């Protein structure tokens, strides 16, 4: 009777090991916008979001204006030493899953070391693209005084909301539904 139990345990361990080894996708860009999804028009008084091109941690560049031509964009400004950023990341990841191909999320770090950013992405299971902004241009244009800050941009490029000190997953999800995605 012990042998089947041992074999079962071993099989479980191997399966767990293989599952653990399966690489979680990082830097994922959304696929095509699902059919039937509609985006809400931005309010008339919403200011234009600062357009910029950021360099991602994989060395490629991302033109934000090209992205919000397709769908809303959420910018997540963070630093690797920011405990509040890490605390908020799990619920933000849930919202990323909720709006998988409807909203693009982009992380933007400023002063953090590239190796620390890579470790932070792994530790916090971030699947969306992350940009390094060593010059701080993106932080300046979005008036980020201190991490975290989350900014929501509509399809078409209007700044809908900014959350200094970050945002809860619930509020982010609700706001996207109220202001950006029908």
């Amino acid at each position, binding site marked *: 009777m012990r042998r089947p139990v041992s074999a079962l345990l071993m099989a479980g361990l191997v399966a767990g090991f293989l599952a653990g080894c399966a690489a979680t996708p990082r830097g994922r860009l959304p696929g095509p916008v699902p059919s039937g999804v509609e985006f809400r028009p931005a309010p008339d008084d919403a200011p234009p979001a600062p357009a910029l091109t950021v360099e991602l941690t994989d060395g490629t560049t991302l033109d934000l204006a090209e992205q919000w031509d397709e769908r809303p964009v959420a910018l997540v400004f963070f630093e690797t030493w920011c405990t509040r950023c890490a605390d908020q990341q799990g619920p933000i990841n849930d919202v990323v899953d909720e709006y998988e191909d409807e909203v693009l999320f982009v992380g933007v770090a400023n002063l953090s070391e590239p190796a620390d950013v890579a470790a932070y992405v792994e530790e916090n299971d971030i699947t969306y693209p992350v940009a390094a902004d060593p010059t*701080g241009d993106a932080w300046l244009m979005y008036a980020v005084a*201190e991490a975290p800050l989350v900014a929501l941009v509509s399809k078409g490029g209007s700044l809908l909301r900014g959350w200094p000190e970050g945002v809860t997953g619930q509020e982010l999800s609700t706001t996207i539904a109220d202001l950006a995605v029908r």
Partner: protein
Amino acid sequence: MRDPVAPRAAEGRAARRRKGGVALTAGLCLAGLLTACSGGGAGAEDTQAVRLVVPDANIREPSDPCSGARAFRYAHPEAAYEVLSGGDVLAAGALPEGRAEKAFSLDLGSERQPTVCVMSLEVPASVDLADAELMIGEHGPVPILPNPAFDDTPEAVLR
């Protein structure tokens, strides 16, 4: 003829030795734990706190965790600092996370209000902070001076 009592006595002695060994091990572990907890282990050193005030006037709730904001973003957790005097490095380390303190002693009617970010740097107690200055990376130096409002706690205010 074997003494039937002898094996039991021997077993009893062995058991007592085992118990004694366990007690000794537990005692040593406890002593080690207490030493580690009290910070009295070899290499541990008494420290003195230096208040680092980052006057960024950022809007936060007092006591929130913080790092330097806006022009003071260089003053962030993990940033390297040095305490200097006459060109000599007296102490060095990495900045800890800060806590927000009210920038003004006024009731502004809101939990979120202008704050400064205050970090507590632990430097060896043996360091003489008279005439000492603080550098954060390439920023500084700023003088470290006793602050009478906090029992003459040594304080550096960035500018």
